[in-house]
């Protein structure tokens, strides 16, 4: 396996719980990889192993052809943005950013202060050097954390839920700006998130983790259109999970589980009969909750806003289904 940053069969246990089991993946130079998974899936542990805060029980980590498995964090030349930013409250913005620029103090040569200014310009906080970090807004703190991580020109950038601390209204914009910035710098990045939308929006590729194992690694399109497991199919995007006769009615073989996305279901003249119980309007379309099979089954349908009304009796057909051989767990997002 090639790759600029690479893990080889990483395993880690905490006491009796298995945090990671034989995890292998590779990140190309300049690529952004999202680690996506529910809590307890091992994504944060993976990031901490990449940073060097934890040592793996087995396996190796390679960076730029160098085995860094047993290198302490201080010597890995990685940058990290922490979930709560971990800005040093006793230092101002400039000193925070300068912290990683070696022991040379301020004033000695122009280079440190120049690099601090450069890093702050990168995140559009030029002139903020002497501000106290407590005076900054959440979004500004996040950008200072980013500037601090990037200032020493690390080989890889690690981000732990970088947007979770922001206002929901701010999140989407910041997400786009963050991606643009990382791409401009061209740094290889790995970030952790539990939100599918964030992973798809920010990552070039996404690694879906579950119980310390890698379920699937691929581009957002691959994960959504061609999920390899039932878990990925249900964790990534909305999904109707069908079993037994219903599954077979939608084209599944005996013993198979069938997953149908809401937008792949449509109202038609024939097919599975049901009654519309709820309608959630989202503008471009609406989500309909359809009760079928004597109220033992509920299906979510995405269709035009005027496709049906509450109380209507409808028939459902699928335009595309995903079938999985067994029932190895459904994600409950």
């Amino acid at each position: 396996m090639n790759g600029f940053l690479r893990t080889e069969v990483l395993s880690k246990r905490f006491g009796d719980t298995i945090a990671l089991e034989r995890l292998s993946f590779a990140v190309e130079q300049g690529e952004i990889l999202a680690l996506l998974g529910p809590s307890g899936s091992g994504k944060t542990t993976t990031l901490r192993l990449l940073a060097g805060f934890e040592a793996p029980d087995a396996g190796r980590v390679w960076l730029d052809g160098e085995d860094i498995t047993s290198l302490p964090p201080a010597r890995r030349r990685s940058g990290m943005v922490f979930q709560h930013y971990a800005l040093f409250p006793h230092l101002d913005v400039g000193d925070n950013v300068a912290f990683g620029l070696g022991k040379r103090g301020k004033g000695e040569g122009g280079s440190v202060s120049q690099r601090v200014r450069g890093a702050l310009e990168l995140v559009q906080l030029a002139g903020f050097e002497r501000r106290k970090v407590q005076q900054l807004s959440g979004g500004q703190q996040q950008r200072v954390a980013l500037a601090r991580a990037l200032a020493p020109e690390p080989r890889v950038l690690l981000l732990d839920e970088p947007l979770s601390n922001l206002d929901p209204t701010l999140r989407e914009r910041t997400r786009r700006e963050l991606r643009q910035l990382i791409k401009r710098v061209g740094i290889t990045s790995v970030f952790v998130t539990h939100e599918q939308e964030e992973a798809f929006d920010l990552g070039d590729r996404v690694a879906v983790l579950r119980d310390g194992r890698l379920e699937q690694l691929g581009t957002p399109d691959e994960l959504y259109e061609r999920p390899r497991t039932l878990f990925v199919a249900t964790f990534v995007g909305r999904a109707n999970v069908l079993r037994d006769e219903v599954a077979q009615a939608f084209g599944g073989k005996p013993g198979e589980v069938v997953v149908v996305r809401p937008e792949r279901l449509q109202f038609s003249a024939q097919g599975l009969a049901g009654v519309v119980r709820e309608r959630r309007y989202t503008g471009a379309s609406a989500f309909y909750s359809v009760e079928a099979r004597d109220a033992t089954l509920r299906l979510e349908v995405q269709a035009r806003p005027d496709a049906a009304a509450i109380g209507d009796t409808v028939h459902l057909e699928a335009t595309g289904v995903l079938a999985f051989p067994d029932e190895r767990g459904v994600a409950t997002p």
Partner: protein
Amino acid sequence: MKRRADVVGWVVVALLAWMVAYPILIVGREAARESAIIAFARRPAEWQVLWASIWISLASVALAAAIGIPLAFLFTRVEFPGSRLLGALIALPAVLPPLVGVIAFLFLYGESGFVARGVQALLRLDHSPWHLQGAGAILLVHAYSMYVYFYLLTRAGLARIDGSMIEAAQALGASRWRTLRRVTLPLLRPALAGAALLTFMTALGSFSAPYVFGGGFRVMPTQIVASKLNGDLPRAMVETVALALVALVALSLLQRTEGQATLVALGKGTAPAPRVLVGGRGLVTTAAWALAVVLLLPHFTLLLISLVPYATWTTETLPPVLNLDNYRRLFAESDRLEPLVNSLWMALVATAASLVIALAAAWLTVRRRVRPRRIIESLMVLPWALPGTVFALALATAFSVQRPLGLRWVLVGTSAILPLAYLVRSLPLAGRAVLAGYRQLDPALEEAAAILGAGRWRTLWRVTVPLLRPSLAAGASLAFVTALGDFVTSIVLYTYNTRPISIEILSSLRLNELGIAAAFGVLLMTVSAVALLLGSRTEAWS
């Protein structure tokens, strides 16, 4: 990496065990002699002394609670002119080191003190109207100096109570009295149990008051020192072990009550607003100010006596001459300056050492979570659980023989023994402050430093220590004040060359140089107050 931290952890365990546990074990072994134990058990006087220690401590708890709890309610719940200032002043007995408080009481209420002289002059008596001696005098000093524990802890407890709980009780139709009994007091139980424990342990270990005011009335700490000074070492050992056992039994009993009552308030909430007093305002204000005067009288007395030059005050009610002569002598006469210098350097060394150990212990137990973390924490608090006399005796016993193979060296008589004793005594204070601070420190901050390329030492100096500054300052000030004012271990372990201020105060008293003793007391009080103020004012990084 984890294993290396474990090794460091065991090294710290060994160091702490050598300083804290080993001397106690040596005393225990020395005491385990049949003849000495039988002699102890057969002497009714010993049982009387042990019982006196217990009942004096229990009575101190009752008195301190009776004063401290109502005051805490008054100053938290009622607002009147000057209530804020008084609320702060009322904690002032805390800045009096034990021996200094005792001599202030001597000058104030003693048989030739101001109050006695005043009464004598007023009633035209030929001699002093009373002797300040025995159990009553000890309890008076204890009540005065220990109500502060109840006062401060009750106020802290009241501040934590969610005001909406009180309001909920009232909305449910509970009367003021019922709310107090059914809601407020149960919620305060952990705070009150903590205060009771603190008071009991302090009273049990109290030495200065019984030493100066006891007369024929002995408690175990004074009894132990008397046995030691009489050269009856086996007896002193058995007595020490008996006192230590009482302390440990009391600790486990009281901690159990505290542990059962872990009532956690749900939600943050705000404390109820103080009631602005309308009716009876004048009465409460006058009473509160009168109380403040009573509380501050010892401080003023000390200050006044320190201005009375030697042999200028004999039978007059008030001293006729006041000047700064005593202070001048204190700094001009080298053998007076010496104890001052001794106390300062010994307290500073002990404080610095206890901070270093506390920081290492905090790092090992909180951050690295090394295997022996529980042992480290227990060893750090052990000196708090045992009276000072016990440790004084233990150190005197352990370090008076040269047995390098048994890790025992002759330190008694050298200038190392008192700093060591102060260090042991101040470990729990520094340890508690620094450990609590470290627990609140976000581990991501140290990780951020590490990933930015900072090594362990740079992270320590540039991140951990600056962020822990409030906790370090608080721990340092408490450790320093305790060491500076120490009397109980000093009297057992001092040598002439290393005599600290408290010993010099005592010898000045014996020579009837009251002014000098008071001037030393004022200095101790001032330095303690400044240190405590600095320690509590160091601002946290929010």
